[in-house]
């Protein structure tokens, strides 16, 4: 187990180097001149532009720029953004709130998705099942900016139940609505996955055996049906955590949350390579860790899976 964990963690190193190199190359290939856009319509004085280029090594060839970046990482000094703030500070500032938002969304979609899915799956073809299926289709079809804006106007402005935005004071209450919006699509998907999986397992041999043994209906459902149905769901949730970390640009915009999505988006618009690469790399790392957790969870859910 430990050996497996160590091996998986070692894999992070090549992934990290590869990801940063690839990302850096992509940013480098972005056409245009980021410094030219800084001064608005009339541009900055030429001398100022040149000094900014020198400061950010933008006048150097690609590989030299990349090496400067690596040096920055290993000396824990990534330098400043174009606005003169330390990149590390900007990244560290954006992470917690996005992480909180992602976890809240994850909790909402997991609890409700699995709950509804299980319920629907156990009552296949009944009224509850059919109506939940239609609802989930609807939620999958609605883009987040529609649900977001509609909820914001209705629940926030008209009914005044929840704060309209979460920019100034991002606490649990003000993040609730964004988290619900963020969770909708995945909620519907988890629901459908769980339902299908449950339906498959309810008729499986081991469930029939368990019932024949005389186990109570609740125990059969929770220990045998649910546990075995969760494997595809857990895979989905693991990948989804990564999506939630990145896919919230729209939601962050609507609810004025200054997280990873918004910061990344602004950095891309400005061509601020160090911020883009650092932020994206952090997201890559989140993906890796989430996937590792998923793999470890498999062993918990299915005793036949062992890591050595």
């Amino acid at each position, binding site marked *: 187990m430990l050996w497996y964990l160590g091996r998986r963690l070692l894999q992070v190193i090549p992934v990290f180097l590869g990801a940063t190199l690839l990302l850096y190359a992509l940013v480098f290939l972005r056409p245009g001149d980021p410094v030219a856009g*800084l001064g608005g319509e*009339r541009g900055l004085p030429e001398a100022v532009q040149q000094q900014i280029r020198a400061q950010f090594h933008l006048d150097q060839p690609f590989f030299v720029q990349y090496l400067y970046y690596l040096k920055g990482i290993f000396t824990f000094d990534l330098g400043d953004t174009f606005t003169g703030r330390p990149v590390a500070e900007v990244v560290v500032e954006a992470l917690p709130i996005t992480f909180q938002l992602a976890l809240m969304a994850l909790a909402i979609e997991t609890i409700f998705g699995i709950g509804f899915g299980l319920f629907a799956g156990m009552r296949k073809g009944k009224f509850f099942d059919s109506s939940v299926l239609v609802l989930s289709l609807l939620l999958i079809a609605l883009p987040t900016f529609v649900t977001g804006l509609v909820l914001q106007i209705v629940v926030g402005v008209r009914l005044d139940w929840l704060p309209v935005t979460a920019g100034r004071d991002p606490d649990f209450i003000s993040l609730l609505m964004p988290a619900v919006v963020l969770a909708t699509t995945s909620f519907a998907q988890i629901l459908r996955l769980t339902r299908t999986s449950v339906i498959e397992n309810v008729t499986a041999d081991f469930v029939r055996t368990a019932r024949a043994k005389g186990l109570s209906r609740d125990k059969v459902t929770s220990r045998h049906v649910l546990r075995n149905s969760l494997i595809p769901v857990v895979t989905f949730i693991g990948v989804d955590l990564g999506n939630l970390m990145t896919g919230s640009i729209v939601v962050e915009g609507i609810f004025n949350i*200054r997280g990873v999505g918004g910061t990344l988006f602004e950095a891309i618009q400005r061509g601020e390579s160090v911020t883009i690469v650092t932020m994206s790399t952090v997201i890559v790392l989140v993906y890796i860790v989430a996937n590792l957790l998923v793999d470890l969870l498999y062993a918990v859910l299915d005793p036949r899976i062992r890591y050595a």
Partner: protein
Amino acid sequence: MTPRKRLVGLGAFALASSLVLTACGGGGGGDDTGDGNSTGIVTVGNGEPQNPIIPTMTNETFGSKVTSNVFAGLVYYDAEGVVHNEVAESIESEDNKVWTITLKDGWTFSDGTPVTAQSFVDAWNYGAYAPNAQNLSYFFEPIEGFTDVQFAEDQLDKDGAPKEGEVPASETMSGLEAVSETELQVTLAQPESDFPLRLGYSAFYPLPESFHDDPEAFGEEPIGNGPYVLDTWEHNRLIELRPNDSYAGEREVQNGGVDLVAYTDEDSAYNDLLDGNLDIVTNVPASAFGTFEEELGDRAVNQPAAVIQVINVPEYVEGFQGEAGLLRRQAISMAIDRDQVTETVFSGSRTPATDFTSPVINGWSDDLEGNEVLDYNPEEAKRLWDEAEAIEPWGDEPLYIASNADSDHQSWIDPTCNGIRDTLGIDCEFDAYPTFDEFLDARDNEQIKGLFRGGWQADYPAMSNFLGPIYGTGAGSNDMGYSSEEFDAKLDEAAGESDPDAAIELYKEAQTILFQDLPGIPLWYNNATGGWSEAVDNVVFGWDSDPLLYQVTKSE
């Protein structure tokens, strides 16, 4: 046009609070402005400043909402853009070249140090000195000795970057001199009659001595002499401005403070306003252009701003040269139905242009000689185009209008192109560049295939600001390559004219030359669109589209 004057009888009110202010001056912080009813904190939608809060660095509106309230310059602009002395007692010159500026007594920075002539001299020298790489350094160009604080040609490498270890010939401009504590003498390289008009702009604010010790720390925690002090700055979230007890000027604070709330999205700010979570928005989102005046009633503002949009005609593009080229410029201008586009695309949040400046600028005019070329006149447009065709055929090429596509320009370029297509019978296309900087790159390297979009926002309320920097021969933003001796001479004449009214007439005459040559085709003026909540009163949007925050009242 909506009435843009909401002047409020502040006279007695201001006097009363100024007495109290004097009484408790130096008594340390505190929210009391002297009026028991208006001590609320006014919340304003803004964004994260793009630069450290250093006046000579601040070239965008998020940061300038901070600098204009935290600093006080020699003069300030009222809502109409009229200049009033602030720190200056008088600004005088006999030849428009050597300016003698005397300062009022009793001004201090919020750290207690005095505001002297030297505070201005040092700040301006810092701003101009090339190695400091200040965004607004070009504002000091008119001052004598500016070239001495720039890198010389031979100090730059082939890319234009300064070579290692090289410094400019001087650290200070010879044209700046602090004659005494309260007298400042500024010598310009050549006469500039509107020099006093510029002095209220961010670049010309004074800085305390502590700035020069550590500019970087200052950029995070600026110390100014304006009506407010910057209390806290939570990046990307909130900037808290609180009344400055030591402020000695006329912009008396009428509220308990201002919170500038950072938004990334105009829609969310607007929804917060509707919900009462925000007091003032300074930009209505495009999605609400059609509805905001109805939703907010008399709490909405929609008035022309000091911003003009044009389609520029690069001199290097074939087909726009000589006699035929001129006819084509006129034909294209007359083929654009400005009224229709501003109404349907912008829901009235743009105002059709009648000159090359802006309605908020003193000297703006809608009856300049030659401006009928801005009227929609399809028959005449077709006639002029055919006349040009007779001289030199256009060919099968479409007419391109270039712009960046990362903000919404397609919405007006498409209908504009449709008008040109229908009227002139030629193909017209939006030449879209994915990002703003790619567009600038192509523009600066003269790679534009046809016409290109240009937008100009005034830094200070003067006609000259709309003319010289854009249409002057070799001027910084003259990306068309336009050059007219007659126009340049007229600008020089206006710059040397000491009577402001006579200067305005000369700037008008200069514009008639532009109407003859059409280096750019004026389209429309942007409007300042904004609104405020029921919790606040006395909200007036100034000439620069920003509300005068100090006079907003809010009860708790």
